[in-house]
C-alpha cells in the first residue's frame, strides 16, 4: 500500500513537471505576442491613458488619438475646410481662414505642441503651424476647437514651428524658406546676401491665451528647419537647425549639401526682450491676418495687422550665436534638463550633441571660429558634449524619456535608436515600417517626459496594410519603452501625413472637456433662444431665418415667400442643453456644406436657391428616435412673385 502511494506520487510529480515544462515553453513562445496585445487593449467602456495629438500633415488638420489603443477620437479642423463640421464653410468660421492672400482653404499642418506651465504640460491649448501660407493656430482643449489663427509676415514655409517655451511665454515659429524682406520684385539669382529668414515670437496671454506677434528676428538667408526651446538653465534660449547655409537658390539637393558643417542658431530671446524694451527694434510696415474665434458669440473675426517689430542680429550683439553642426541638421532637440542640444545631421551617420554650459563658457571666452553676417560662430570643439557614433543613417528627430535616454529616428535605415545621455552609447535599436520621420514621447518637449510609450510616425507603409490603390495610408507605431529594450506594440493608420505629435496624460485634459455650450451665454448676433423667438426677416434680397433645433424638430419647419435670387441665411441655434446632442442642418442644393451645431451653439448656412419649387431640409446628425422626422420645407417662388413671407411649425 505504502509503495503504491509512493509510486503514484512519483508518477504524479513527473506528470506535473512535464506539464509545467511544456506549458513554460509554450508561454515563452507566445508571451511577447500576447503581452503586446494586452498592453494596447483598452476594454470596451474603458478609457485610454494618454491623448495623442497627431498632425494631419497635408490634410491640414489635427487628429486626436488615444494611447495605447491607437483609437481615433476626433479630427479637429484647423487649416483646411471641413464640410462635416462646416469649418470654413459657415459664416461663423470663414474668417478663420483669412490671410493677406485672401481666403486660403488648405494648409500643411506640421508640429503640434501643448502649452506649458513651469516646464510641464498644462493641457490648456495645443498649437500647430501651417507650413505653406505661414500661420500658427491655437486649439482650445476645453472645446477641442481651433480658436485663433495668426498669419506670419516675412515668413515662407513655416516649418521650424510651433514650439512652446517653458511657461508658454512664446510660441516660436521659424521660416524654412528665406525670402526678400520686405517682399519685392527682384531676381532670384540675387538670393545670396539679400534674402532673410524671419524668426517669429508670438506671445500668449496667460489668462485667455490671446496671441500677439511680439517681434521677429531677421536672420541670414539660410533655411531654418526645426527648433526647440531651452529649458531649466537654458530657458530663455531657442535653438534652430539650419541647412542651405550655402544660400543656394536652385537644385538644393546638391547645392545645399556642399558644406560639411551647417549650424544650430542659438537665439537668446531674453536678450531680444531687452533690446525690444531698449527700443532697438524697428517697426516695419507689413500686412497679416489675425483671426479670433469667440466662444460666446460662436463667431470668428479677422483683423488685418499692418506693422511688425523686427530685430537685426547683425547689429545687436549677444542676440544670436551659431553652433557648427555637421551636414544639414534636421531635428533640433533639447533634453529634459536643458543642458544638451541634439542636432541630427541628416546627411551624417553621427549625432552631434552640444552642451549648453559649454556654449555659455565659449561665448564668455569669445571662442569664435569666425563670424557670419556679424554673428559669431562658436568653435566646434568648445561646445560639443559628445557624439553618438555611427548610430544609423539619416538621423531626423530625438525625444527623451525620464531615465536619461535619448531616442532618435533614422529615416534611411528606418529605425528608432535608443542611446544614453552622457555616455553616448547605443542601447537598443528597433526597425520601423517604414521610413520613420518624427517620434513622440508624451511630455517630450518638457522637463517631465513620461517613460512608458514612444510613438513613431512613418512616411511609407507599402505592404503593412490592405492595399488601397496607389495611395496607401501613412502610419504610427507604438513602442513600449518602459524596459531596457524597446518593444513594438501596435501599428495604426493615421490621417494625412503625421509629422510631429504631442502626447499628454488624459486626466490633465479630460476633466476640463466641455459638455455643451450654455445657451444663456450665447451672444451670437442671430441667436434664437426659444421657439417663441423664431422668425423670418427679409432685408432686400437677404432673408434671415432665425431657427431653433431641438429633438425632434426645427422651428419653423415650413417657410414660404422665398424667391429665386434671394440669399437665405439659416441661423440655426441648437437649444438643447444636454451632452452629446448635436443637430445637423442640410438643405438641398446648398453650395457649401451641412451645419453641425453643438448644444447651445448658433451656426449660419447661406443658401442661394436657383430653382422654383418646394425644397426640403433635414437634420443630418442622428439625434433621436424621431430624427428621421426632423425635417421641413422651403417654398421658393419666381423672382417676381409676391407671395408674402410666412413661417410656421405644427400648423
Amino acid at each position, binding site marked *: 500500500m505504502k509503495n503504491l502511494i509512493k509510486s503514484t506520487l512519483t508518477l504524479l510529480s513527473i506528470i506535473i513537471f512535464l506539464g509545467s515544462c511544456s506549458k513554460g515553453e509554450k508561454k515563452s513562445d507566445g508571451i511577447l505576442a500576447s503581452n503586446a496585445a494586452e498592453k494596447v487593449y483598452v476594454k470596451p467602456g474603458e478609457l485610454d491613458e494618454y491623448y495623442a495629438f497627431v498632425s494631419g500633415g497635408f490634410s491640414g488638420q489635427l487628429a486626436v488619438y488615444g494611447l495605447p489603443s491607437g483609437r481615433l477620437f476626433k479630427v479637429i479642423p484647423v487649416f483646411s475646410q471641413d464640410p462635416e463640421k462646416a469649418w470654413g464653410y459657415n459664416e461663423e468660421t470663414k474668417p478663420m481662414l483669412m490671410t493677406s492672400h485672401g481666403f486660403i482653404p488648405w494648409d500643411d499642418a506640421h508640429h503640434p505642441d501643448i502649452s506649458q506651465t513651469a516646464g510641464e504640460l498644462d493641457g490648456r491649448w495645443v498649437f500647430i503651424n501651417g507650413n505653406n501660407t505661414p500661420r500658427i493656430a491655437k486649439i482650445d482643449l476645453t472645446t477641442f476647437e481651433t480658436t485663433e489663427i495668426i498669419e506670419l509676415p516675412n515668413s515662407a514655409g513655416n516649418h521650424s514651428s510651433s514650439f512652446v517655451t517653458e511657461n508658454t511665454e512664446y510660441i516660436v515659429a521659424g521660416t524654412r524658406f528665406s525670402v526678400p524682406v520686405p517682399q519685392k520684385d527682384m531676381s532670384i539669382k540675387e538670393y545670396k546676401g539679400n534674402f532673410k529668414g524671419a524668426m517669429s515670437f508670438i506671445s500668449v496671454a496667460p489668462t485667455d491665451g490671446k496671441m500677439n506677434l511680439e517681434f521677429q528676428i531677421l536672420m541670414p538667408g539660410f533655411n531654418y528647419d526645426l527648433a526647440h526651446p531651452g529649458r531649466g538653465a537654458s530657458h530663455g534660449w531657442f535653438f534652430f537647425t539650419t541647412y542651405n547655409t550655402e544660400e543656394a537658390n536652385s537644385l538644393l539637393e546638391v547645392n545645399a549639401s556642399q558644406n560639411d558643417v551647417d549650424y544650430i542658431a542659438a537665439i537668446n530671446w531674453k536678450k531680444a526682450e531687452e533690446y525690444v524694451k531698449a527700443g532697438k527694434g524697428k517697426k516695419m510696415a507689413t500686412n497679416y491676418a489675425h483671426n479670433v474665434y469667440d466662444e460666446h458669440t460662436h463667431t470668428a473675426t479677422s483683423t488685418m495687422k499692418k506693422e511688425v517689430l523686427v530685430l537685426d542680429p547683425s547689429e545687436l550683439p549677444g542676440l544670436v550665436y551659431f553652433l557648427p553642426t555637421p551636414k544639414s541638421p534636421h531635428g533640433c532637440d533639447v533634453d529634459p534638463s536643458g543642458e544638451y542640444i541634439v542636432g541630427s545631421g541628416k546627411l551624417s551617420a553621427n549625432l552631434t550633441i552640444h552642451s549648453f554650459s559649454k556654449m555659455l563658457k565659449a561665448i564668455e571666452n569669445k571662442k569664435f571660429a569666425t563670424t557670419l553676417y556679424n554673428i559669431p560662430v562658436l568653435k566646434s570643439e568648445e561646445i560639443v558634449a559628445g557624439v553618438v557614433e555611427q548610430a544609423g543613417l539619416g538621423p531626423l528627430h530625438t525625444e527623451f524619456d525620464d531615465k536619461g535616454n535619448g531616442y532618435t529616428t533614422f529615416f534611411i535605415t528606418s529605425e528608432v535608436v535608443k542611446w544614453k545621455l552622457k555616455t553616448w552609447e547605443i542601447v537598443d535599436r528597433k526597425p520601423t515600417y517604414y521610413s520613420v520621420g518624427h517620434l513622440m514621447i508624451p511630455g517630450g518637449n518638457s522637463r517631465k517626459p513620461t517613460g512608458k510609450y514612444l510613438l513613431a510616425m512613418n512616411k511609407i507603409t507599402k505592404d503593412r496594410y490592405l492595399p488601397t490603390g496607389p495611395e496607401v495610408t501613412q502610419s504610427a507605431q507604438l513602442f513600449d519603452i518602459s524596459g531596457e529594450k524597446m518593444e513594438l506594440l501596435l501599428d495604426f493608420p493615421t490621417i494625412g501625413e503625421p509629422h510631429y505629435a504631442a502626447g499628454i496624460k488624459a486626466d490633465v485634459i479630460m476633466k476640463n472637456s466641455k459638455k455643451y455650450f450654455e445657451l444663456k451665454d450665447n451672444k451670437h448676433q442671430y441667436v434664437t433662444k426659444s421657439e417663441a423667438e423664431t422668425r423670418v426677416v427679409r432685408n432686400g434680397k437677404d432673408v434671415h431665418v432665425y431657427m431653433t433645433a431641438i429633438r425632434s424638430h426645427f422651428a419653423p419647419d415650413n417657410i414660404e415667400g422665398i424667391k429665386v435670387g434671394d440669399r437665405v441665411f439659416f441661423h440655426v441655434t441648437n437649444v*438643447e*442643453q*444636454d451632452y452629446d446632442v448635436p443637430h445637423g442642418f442640410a438643405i438641398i442644393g446648398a453650395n457649401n456644406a451641412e451645419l453641425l451645431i453643438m448644444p447651445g451653439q448658433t451656426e449660419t448656412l447661406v443658401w442661394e436657391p436657383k430653382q422654383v419649387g418646394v425644397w426640403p431640409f433635414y437634420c443630418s446628425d442622428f439625434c433621436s428616435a424621431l430624427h428621421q*422626422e426632423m425635417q421641413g420645407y422651403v417654398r421658393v417662388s419666381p423672382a417676381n412673385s409676391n407671395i408674402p413671407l410666412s413661417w410656421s411649425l405644427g400648423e
Partner: protein
Amino acid sequence: MRHSKIIMIVGSLMLFSLFIFPLWNITLEAPQYPEPLGMDIWINKVTDGNPNDIKNINLMNHYIGMRDVPVDLKEFKIFPIVILVMAVLGVLIGIIGKRKLFLFWGFTMIVLGIVGMYDFYLWLYDYGHNLNPHAAIKIPGQGYMPPLFGAKSILNFNAISLPKAGAYFMIVGITFSFIAFFQAKKENKKLYY
C-alpha cells in the same frame, strides 16, 4: 429649562431644514445616461439634479405624451405655510411644555405627512397617466407613473424615487416630539418624588 422642552423645540426647529434641503428625489437611469437624469422635490419647488435635467426629462417625456414637470404646483404655495405654522406651533408647545400637546403635535405631523404623501401619489399618478393623445410613441396599457418609493423600470429607464435630507430631518423632528413626550413623563415623575 427642562430637557423635554428643549427636545421639543429642537425637533420643531428641524422642520426649517425643509427650506434648506430637498424632500424627495426622483432619478432616471438609462444606458445612454451614464450620468443619470434627476430632479429634487422640495416643499416649494422642483429643481434639477444636474443642470438642465428637468429640461431633458421633459424632452424625453414629450415623445410619450407626458406633460412638462410642473414647476408651479399649488402645493408649492401651501406646503411652506403649513411647515412654517407647524414649526412655530411646535416651538410654542415646547415653551408651554405640556406633554400632551407634544403628542398632539407629533400625531398632527404624521397625519400631515400621510396627506402629503397621498397628494404626491395623486400628482405622480396624474403625471404618469394623463397623456397627450397625439404622442409619437403610444404603448397600449403602458403607464409612466414613477414609483412613490423605490425603483421601477419604465421603458428604457429605471426610475428611482427616494427621500432626501429634508424628509429625514422631518422624521427625526417628529421622533423628537415623541421622545420629548416620554422625557416629560419621566421629569414629571421626578417632580412628584
